[in-house]
Every structure is written in structure tokens, then in C-alpha cells.
């Protein structure tokens, strides 16, 4: 297809042939990403920028107090979740918002498709929604002959490039300016340029027409307020407002955990969300959707629907440790600060939600059979837990899922025990035996020291990048005995440098 075939205004969105990544292939995908200097550079630069912005915007805040408040608000909402969901439904319905319940992604897709079909809809414009990614809504609608076009700029680019988002807040963060220029040139016929304003303006023009002609708008929800039946939508581009107000039908889709109790719970969470996500004090748009167009009003949709999706969340809810996963407000700070995510990028994880939050959430959505490498893909450095605005103990939950994966947990996660191997169990049992038999430990470590010359210089992957550690000639246990025998005023015979070499 040449540039001439596509006029800027009317380019067709190609049928979704999404470039796929699979969590089962984490290792291969990580290898590919690590070998790709462009990916490495794009993520490093973007994550450094995001970390810096967050640090700056929180510098004059009592962050710990705010995080505590955020965690409490989310925890309180989860503690009352069944009641709040009923209250939300009642208040939404009273506002004229039709509420639908979906047990899984498939059911949610079906509900949305049927709502579209009931209106004879052929085109859907979408605001950003990770839940819709989670349930593969676009593919579903397209297979029913309904075109779904992403309107968030990053999502739009990713869709043009036939990819999936690599970050939950910045879907196209894996692309740099030149790559974006190429994609827009190839798919929409714009000039090749490094002029970001030109490209943004072109995308805006391309999308504007689609907002006007779309039959249905689909958006996500950041906070669903039970007390008032209000749907809050946080965004920067105005595409959320267009999506939810221009087409005759607005369908909001969200996970059941996004509910908060009261309107006054929103400002602290909003403050935490924007600062943690992009380092902004406020976003350009904050939408509060409280129903369809009323008789005297001139604009707004004729119908508003809310689709509440479970898709594995209620099983997380049953577990008093794992429930903390559901506090998440989807800011993405955990990925921005994750040294693993920064190196391998979002696609490597092969899941809708990448990075630390994805590694504790996706096993519940997909099962541990498919995601068994994700909980271990962390050095447990704690950076994610440190920045989480609602204080999700992500490292502890990663360890909990490691436990489940090797069959030493509660067994209530799908695929529990999938990583259990006789060899590894035997190794840890051996470690346990040695570490609980002190004289055997002392004997064993002493022998290892004596045989240090026999230590292999190659120790699997470790020594491809590092030298092999060699056991010291004399263990600490023995050094302490010698030290005691010599009395306490001795000077060490050899400096540590000499001893080691």
C-alpha cells in the first residue's frame, strides 16, 4: 500500500493482525528485547524521565501520609466491595446508566457486541481501556464486522502498528519519534518528520472525523463512585471526553474492583494517580459521567452503559493476602521503577498488564501454567512496592505466587504447583538438611574451602557474564575460632585483599 492510497482523512484501519507475545515465551522475548538496542534505549530514556517527574512532583508532598490514605481508601472499598457494587448499580441505574455484569472477558465482549448490534452500529471509537485489552474487545468486535478504532494517541499508534500496548499508561512508550513517524507515514500517508506537533495534529485530524461518525464510544473507568453512581475518567488528550460524549451510545467497561465508596475518596486517589503515573499535578481532562443526555440538554449520548467485568477478580478477592492486588489504581509507577521492566520492556511479559503489577495480577487471569515465569522475573529489589501509591506489597505477593507455583502455597491459584519439580524439591530439601545440621554444615563448608581449587570456573549462565565465586580457604566459623584462640587484640595476618586473591 502506498502513501497515495491513503488520504489522511479516510485511511482505513486494517483488520487487526496483532503482533503477539506470549507469557510462556518470556525468556525468548526477554532475550530478543535485550538484544534490541532501540528497545533498550527507548525504555531506559522513558522510564528515567517518568521516575524523575514523579520524584519532582511529590517533592513537596507528605507522600507517606498520602499513600497511607490512598491505601486505606482502596482497602475500605474492597472490604465493602459486594455492597458497594450493589449501591453503584442502583445509583447508576437511577442516573440512567444501564449496568451489565460480566463473569469473564468473553461475556463482557458479547454484552458490548450485542449493545452495538442493537443500535446497528458499524463503528466504535474507543477511549483508552486496559480492561478492553484484557478481554480482546477489538478482535471480538472486528470478527462481528464492527470496526473498533483506538483514539488515545498511544493506543492509536499501537493499533496502526498492529501491536499491543507495552505500558498501561503509555501504550506506545516502546516507540521513539522516528519509529512513530515511519508508522504514521506508512499507514496514514503523513510526511516523514521529527516534528511531533505535526504528527499530533495529523493524528488529531484523522481521529476527529471518526469521533463524529462513530456509532458507539467505548471507554474505561478510573473510579466508579458507589455513593453517586458517577464514572470518573482521567485523561490528557480529550479523546476520553469525545468518546463519551459525541457518539449516541457510550459503553464504559471496567473491572469490578474499580469502585470507591464516596465522591470524597476520589481527590486523594486522583492526586496519587496522576503524580505516580506521569508526574502531573492534574491531568488535562477529568471527566465525571453521571448519565445520558437529559431531555433539556443539547449534547451527550442517548444511552450510557456500564459493563462490570469480573474475569478472575472475585477469586483474588477470596484470599486475604492476594486481595491487596485489587487495590491497584493502574498508575504504572511499578513498571516505571522496575529494573527488569526497564530492561526488557512491556511486550516481553506477553500479558495485557506487564511489569510488577502484571506479574502479580496475570497469574490469576491466565493461570500459572501460562505465567509461571512472571513471578520469578523480579530481583525482589522492592522498588515497585516503594512507589506504589496504594501500598500494594508487590514483592511479598510475588513471593506468595512463587510459593503457589512450586506447590507450597494455599493451592487456590489456577495452575498451582505447575513449577514443582522433583529435582528442585530435592535440592531445597538438601539445603534444609544441611542448614539444620550445624556440624554437617561446618564440615561441608570447610571441605568446600579445601577443594576450592576444584571449583568449576564455569557455573552455567552465571559465568557467561561474571567470574565464578570460589569458596574461601577458611570459613568464618574457623576464622572466629582462630581469632578466639589468639585473643582479641590480634591484628589480622593478611589483609582481606590478599586473603581473597
Amino acid at each position, binding site marked *: 500500500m502506498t502513501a497515495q492510497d491513503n488520504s489522511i482523512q479516510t485511511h482505513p484501519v486494517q483488520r487487526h493482525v496483532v503482533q503477539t507475545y506470549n507469557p510462556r515465551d518470556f*525468556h525468548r522475548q*526477554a*532475550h530478543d528485547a*535485550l538484544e534490541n538496542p532501540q528497545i*533498550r534505549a527507548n525504555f531506559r530514556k522513558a522510564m528515567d524521565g517518568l521516575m524523575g517527574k514523579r520524584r519532582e512532583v511529590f517533592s513537596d508532598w507528605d507522600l*507517606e501520609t498520602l499513600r497511607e490514605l490512598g491505601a486505606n481508601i482502596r482497602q475500605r472499598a474492597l472490604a465493602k466491595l459486594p455492597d458497594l457494587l450493589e449501591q453503584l448499580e442502583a445509583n447508576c441505574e437511577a442516573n440512567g446508566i444501564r449496568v451489565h455484569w460480566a463473569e469473564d472477558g468473553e461475556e463482557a465482549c458479547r454484552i458490548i457486541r450485542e449493545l452495538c448490534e442493537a443500535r446497528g452500529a458499524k463503528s466504535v471509537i474507543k477511549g483508552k481501556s486496559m480492561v478492553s485489552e484484557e478481554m480482546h474487545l477489538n478482535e471480538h468486535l472486528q470478527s462481528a464486522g464492527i470496526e473498533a478504532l483506538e483514539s488515545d494517541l498511544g493506543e492509536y499508534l499501537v493499533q496502526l502498528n498492529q501491536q499491543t500496548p507495552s505500558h498501561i499508561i503509555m501504550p506506545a512508550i516502546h516507540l521513539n519519534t522516528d519509529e512513530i513517524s515511519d508508522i504514521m507515514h506508512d499507514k496514514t500517508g503523513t510526511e516523514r518528520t521529527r516534528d511531533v506537533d505535526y504528527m499530533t495534529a495529523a493524528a488529531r485530524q484523522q481521529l476527529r472525523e471518526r469521533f463524529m461518525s462513530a456509532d458507539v464510544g467505548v471507554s474505561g473507568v478510573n473510579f466508579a463512585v458507589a455513593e453517586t453512581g458517577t464514572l470518573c475518567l482521567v485523561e490528557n488528550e480529550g479523546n476520553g471526553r469525545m468518546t463519551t460524549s459525541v457518539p449516541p451510545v457510550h459503553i464504559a467497561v471496567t473491572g469490578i474492583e474499580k469502585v470507591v465508596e464516596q465522591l470524597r475518596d476520589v481527590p486523594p486517589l486522583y492526586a496519587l494517580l496522576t503524580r505516580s503515573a506521569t508526574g502531573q499535578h492534574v491531568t488535562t481532562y477529568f471527566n465525571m459521567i453521571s448519565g445520558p443526555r437529559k431531555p433539556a440538554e443539547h449534547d451527550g449520548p442517548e444511552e450510557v452503559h456500564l459493563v462490570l467485568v469480573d474475569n478472575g477478580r472475585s477469586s483474588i478477592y477470596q484470599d486475604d493476602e492476594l486481595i491487596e492486588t485489587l487495590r491497584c489504581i493502574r498508575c504504572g509507577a511499578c513498571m516505571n521503577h522496575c*529494573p*527488569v521492566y526497564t*530492561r*526488557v520492556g512491556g511486550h516481553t511479559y506477553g500479558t495485557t498488564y506487564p511489569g510488577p503489577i502484571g506479574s502479580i495480577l496475570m497469574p490469576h487471569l491466565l493461570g500459572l501454567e501460562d505465567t509461571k515465569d512472571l513471578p*520469578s*522475573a*523480579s*530481583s*525482589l*529489589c*522492592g*522498588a515497585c*512496592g*516503594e512507589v506504589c501509591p496504594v501500598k500494594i506489597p508487590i514483592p511479598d505477593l510475588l*513471593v506468595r505466587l*512463587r*510459593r*503457589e*507455583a*512450586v506447590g*507450597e*502455597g494455599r493451592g487456590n491459584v489456577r495452575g498451582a504447583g505447575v*513449577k514443582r519439580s522433583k529435582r528442585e524439591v530435592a535440592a*531445597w530439601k538438601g*539445603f*534444609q538438611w*544441611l*542448614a*539444620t545440621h*550445624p556440624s554437617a554444615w*561446618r564440615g561441608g*563448608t570447610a571441605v*568446600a574451602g579445601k577443594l576450592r581449587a576444584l571449583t568449576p570456573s564455569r557455573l552455567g*549462565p*552465571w559465568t557467561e*557474564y*561474571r*567470574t565464578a*565465586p*570460589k*569458596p*574461601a580457604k577458611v*570459613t*568464618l*566459623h574457623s*576464622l*572466629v575460632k582462630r*581469632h578466639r584462640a589468639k585473643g*582479641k587484640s590480634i591484628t*589480622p595476618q593478611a*589483609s*582481606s*585483599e590478599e*586473603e581473597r586473591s
Partner: protein
Amino acid sequence: MTPVKLYPPKPDKVYLFGTCLIDMFYPEAGLDAMQLLEREGIEVLFPDDQTCCGQPAYTSGYQSEARAVAAAQLGLFPEPWPIIVPSGSCGGMMRTHYPPLFAGTEQEALANEVAGRIYELTEFLVHVCHLRLDDRGPPEKVAMHTSCSARREMGLAETGPTLLASLGQVQLVEQVRAAECCGFGGTFAVRHPEVSAAMVEDKTVAIERAGAERFVTSDCGCLMNIGGRFEHQQKAVKGEHIASYLWRRTS
């Protein structure tokens, strides 16, 4: 964020929990920690039956094995003396993970009691000993690598640098992204070797670019990882445990 800890006055005696990595690979760091404490007039008790805190099994998901190993350490510190651990990672395991690990077991109270007496070495030297150091070493540019466990789990980002800064001849240089993980992470380095390698590569480059002739750390896992990477590339930058570095320059 670790809650503000009220530090006790300097005790007459302490226990030293040497850690398995120090025991096997860096024993001089354990001895040097002991000598630093003894020079402050503290008697150091080294329970001979100590082995490992259990962390490797714990972070791999082998909870019952970890608990058994941890349980074997709990009885080694019967007197109410502080327990000094020359590692943020083992210290973090004992201070923050022992209580939940033993919750609901017969040893719960003992585990909580032991956890409450855990101090990382540099924490203890700074906040309890108020250590004063007389630097006798040559001028040197040094980078501190504070382990993630010391920094985040134990809230000790400052104690290592504070000690190094008090050495008159040492110029403390800061590498970019000093707070970022070196990529060790225990079994992480084995399960995800390529990602770990990318992380340690960045860390060594950062330390070298900062102009450091040496890096000092309070964790032997990081030492093995970063030092092993430097050595593999035959770089001049050497690594050392902070206990050894402090003792060597002031004894």
C-alpha cells in the same frame, strides 16, 4: 518506609550472625565486622551452630524449607543482646520476614522477639556505636552500593555512605541510578540470567563512569555479582565488603 526505630544505648555484648555467603565466600568480612565491634568495647558472641537465615528457600517459594532453616537459628540467641547481621538482605529477612513466616506457629513469639533484635552492621555502627573512624588509608575514590534490602526493606540508604564519608582520605563518588538494583536477587540471577546480566552490566558501567577505583557494599550477594562482573571483564575496579574496608583502613 521503615518505622522510626528507637536505638538502644551501646550494649556490653552482641551476637554476630555471619550469614552463609560470608561464611563460605567472604569470611574475612565477618571477622572484620567482629573486630570493628570489639574495638568499640563490645564483646561479640558468635553462636557456632549458625548456618543460614533461610532466605534463598524463602524467596524461591519453598516456605516450609525456609521455616525449618530459620527455626534452627531462632534458638541461638538466648540472651537479650542485639543480633548484628553484616548484610541488609539477611538482616531484612530476619527482621521483616521472620514474624510472618512463624505467625501461627509455636515459635511465633520467639521469632518476633529475635526479629526485634536484628540490626544490620552499618546501622548498628552508626546509630548505636556512633562510630568514629581514624582513616589511615591512602586517598581513594569509592562508590557505595547499598543493597536493595538494606535500602528499602531495612530503610538504611544512608548508614553505609555515612560511614564512608567519615573516612578522611576517602572521596565518596555517586554512580548514576545508585538506588537501582544490581541484578543479583538471589535465585533471580540463575532463573533470569540474561536480564540479571543486563542489570549488572549497567551497574558496573555506572560505577566505573563515576570515577570510582573501588566499590564498597554491605551485601555479599551484590559483591559477588558486581565484583564478578568487573573481574570477568578484567577491570581494575575492585569490590569489598564495607566491614573489611572500614577495618582495613582504620586498623
